[in-house]
């Protein structure tokens, strides 16, 4: 590839539009990360340390509820319009009011379409005030403002693209209105995306004049192409191919840590599966070591507790290993010495399907017959119409709260409460009250030390509760990068940037 161009091979099938306030998935987030800027940036190598970006600086009031941001001057959007606090205000309002998937990033702190006009205001062109309805740990708010979902869009320009009060939603699906280091040239779904460096970027024009993202769905094809130098970066490689590439030495493999897990959900509405001994038995049916050395080699790190490694309260305790006999014994104790049959939905694609097939095999040895159906069954999972389900999650806040909220809170376990965003609710798991209370308390806790201690307790309690959500691996997203490419650093919250990339000979 040319020296000033970057070619990235990705699997594009899940890239559905490029509206930062609508998208919900990793590949699109990486694009949005580069088309737009946000108030705050989290450096990939020190993810818990919020840095200024479009916000030059900020202050937090004594009561911890009011955040005042000073907006950087002299920054322009790709259209040439200056970036002002009005744009920030409009963008955040847009996010909340559209109310699509990423709006959770703000709505979970109490923002809603009703109160957002009042709580998020531009004082003047350079000052933005944000008030939270409750006191939260301030980092949670700052992290949220560094998320792709809080990208700042060009409100003046978009006003011309708006149709029928749609907040220019239609337009932004396939175009950009940002101030980021790159501007969108072409996007053809499931084919390619081209972005050009933004000459007037406030940090200076990026070294890579043009970035191509190509849709290369096959792992082996990606491997061949990166090996041949037809692409610089490949992001959908199987563990075997990654291992092969690493062996050959032309390529470095990054294991970008993510804040999510590979999990197995056991539906608690099911009589058998709601038996704690049965739940416990499943923890002994996962071949942690076998997977870790093969399909999961690059896709995850063993983690059996609920707080992701690298976050406050995390533990490296590994009490479980594959142990068919123990599992059998637990099943016998639970009253199922001869096992049982269940339908098991697993997600397609590597490594989720392999994880499923491996579990099926071990379960069979313990007498559990799993009718494995690999396919897109998330709808059934959300609707609680499943028996076993496995997949992976990915949270975008570098804070234990993000994971715990989904895995360890379930305020109302009734079918009609429809807390469908939470995997705990989906599993119909009535999380022990004390765990839930601790999770809420920790989110509100502003004292860092107390908070860390609290998370450590939660972590332990969760492990002991033999949860309906069996976590086995903490997610990592592997990226293969050719050696001559420097400065491409995979970002744990999906905000990998291209403007830092350079190429050597």
């Amino acid at each position: 590839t040319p020296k000033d161009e970057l070619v990235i091979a990705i699997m594009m099938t899940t890239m559905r539009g490029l509206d930062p306030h609508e998208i919900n998935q990793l590949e699109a987030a990486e694009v949005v990360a580069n088309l737009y800027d946000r108030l705050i940036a989290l450096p990939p190598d020190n993810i818990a340390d919020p840095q200024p970006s479009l916000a030059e600086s900020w202050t937090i009031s004594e009561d911890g509820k009011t955040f005042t941001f000073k907006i950087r001057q002299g920054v322009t959007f790709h259209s040439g319009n200056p970036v002002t606090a009005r744009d920030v205000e409009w963008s955040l309002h847009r996010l909340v009011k559209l109310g699509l998937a990423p709006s959770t990033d703000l709505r979970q702190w109490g923002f809603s379409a009703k109160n957002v006009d009042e709580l998020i205001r531009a004082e003047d062109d350079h000052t933005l005030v944000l008030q939270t309805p409750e006191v939260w740990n301030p980092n949670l708010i700052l992290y949220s403002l560094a998320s792709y979902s809080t990208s700042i869009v060009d409100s003046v320009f978009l006003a011309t693209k708006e149709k029928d009060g749609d907040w220019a939603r239609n337009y932004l699906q396939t175009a950009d209105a940002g101030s980021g280091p790159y501007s969108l040239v072409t996007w053809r779904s499931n084919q390619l995306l081209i972005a050009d460096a933004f000459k007037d970027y406030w940090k200076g024009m990026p070294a890579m004049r043009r970035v191509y993202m190509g849709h290369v769905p096959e792992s082996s094809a990606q491997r061949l192409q990166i090996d041949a130098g037809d692409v610089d970066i490949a992001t959908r490689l199987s563990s075997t191919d990654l291992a092969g590439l690493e062996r050959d030495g032309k390529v470095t493999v990054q294991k970008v840590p993510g804040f999510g897990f590979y999990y197995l959900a056991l539906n608690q509405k099911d009589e058998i599966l709601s038996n704690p001994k049965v739940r416990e038995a499943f923890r002994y049916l996962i071949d942690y070591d076998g997977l870790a050395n093969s399909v999961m080699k690059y896709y995850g790190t063993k983690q059996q507790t609920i707080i992701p490694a690298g976050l406050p309260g995390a533990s490296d305790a590994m009490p479980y290993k594959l142990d068919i006999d123990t599992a059998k014994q637990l099943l016998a104790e639970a009253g199922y010495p001869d096992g049982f049959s269940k339908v098991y939905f697993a997600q397609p694609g590597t490594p989720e399907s392999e994880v499923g097939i491996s579990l099926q095999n071990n379960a069979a040895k313990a007498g559990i017959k799993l009718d494995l159906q690999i396919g897109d069954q998330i709808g059934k999972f959300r609707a609680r119409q499943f028996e076993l389900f496995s997949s992976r999650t990915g949270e975008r806040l570098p804070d234990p709260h993000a994971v715990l909220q989904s895995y360890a809170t379930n305020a109302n376990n009734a079918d009609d409460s429809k807390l469908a965003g939470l995997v705990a609710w989906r599993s119909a798991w009535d999380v022990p009250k004390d765990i839930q209370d601790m999770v809420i308390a920790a989110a509100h806790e502003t004292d860092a030390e107390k908070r860390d201690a609290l998370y450590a307790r939660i972590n332990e309690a969760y492990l002991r509760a033999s949860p309906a959500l069996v976590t086995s691996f903490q997610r990592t997203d592997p990226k293969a990068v050719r050696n001559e490419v420097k400065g491409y650093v995979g970002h744990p919250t999906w905000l990998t940037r291209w403007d830092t990339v350079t190429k050597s000979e």
Partner: protein
Amino acid sequence: MSIIQTSETSAPRKSALPKAAGKVVTSFVVILTTLLGLMMITFTVGRMVPADPVIAVIGDQADQATYDRVYKEMGLDRPIYVQFAGYLSDVVHLDFGQSIITKQPVSKDLARVFPATIELATLATIIGAGLGIPLGVIAAVRKGTWVDHVARVVGLLGYSTPIFWLGTIVILVFYAYLGAIPPGGRIYLYDEGIVQARTNFILIDSALGGHWDVFRSALHHIIAPAVILGYASMAYLSRMTRSFMLEQMRQEYILTARAKGLGQRPIVWRHAFRNIRVQLLTVIALAYCGLLDGTVLIETVFAWPGLGSYLTSALFFADMNAVLGSVLLIGIISIAINLLSDIVYRFIDPRTR
């Protein structure tokens, strides 16, 4: 002397074209009902697909409020026949809706992906017919000789090879080991954005724009998938040609021609082959439609951005508008090809004029 059946009796799905204007109307009605049936089946099937279209839009983690809103926005709360009726009335107004994957009007998507497939299928048919028909003729003329046996095995191999597997092996050998072909796609990524899209046929567009390097790149990319598809179609066409030719060579008029003193070549080409042109045309049309099938797999293997892969991913993600639009297009194409072959048929075959 005896009641002899006409040779048409076994001809598949073709009857003489309606002659009167009234019959034109009938055939129009027939086409419309076919299309309607096609859409009805597709629509029903689309609704049965387990993938949840709402989740395809909002993602896994969204909360229920978002889910409910989008569900309504997409009109999924209405009864299925209302949805279908709504869809039909949109289609009548030439509106195929928006794809939830690409966030583009389906018609715009189709205008983009369809030429890619046509380009591939056409080249494959040219390869297939160009090799298959002569091969079939030779096999028929030399029936029972080694030429025939070789042609038979070559042909049957073409029928029997899993096309996705062949594609994989070809990539492994010709790209990975030999470096003779590109790994997939229509042109190199860094050739993208150079050619102005006029027809969306990259070979034509690049030639029109005088971008010969892009043209070469496109040609380089299309060769492997087109040859693989062309092989499958060659296999089919050579087998059919052979059996058509054999049937003709048994006819009395061949004996007449030989009794006149004609040599083998004019007998084969001027007499027998002329009689199978019509049947061949039908078969080529069928093969062409059949290739749309092959493209589903080959496009996946070669990351060819065509209708096949568009349709596959639309199906997997319950992108109903995209699925319906594609199936409708395929249906129209296959009907149109058959209609066209019917019309050409009438020009070639004196018996139907």
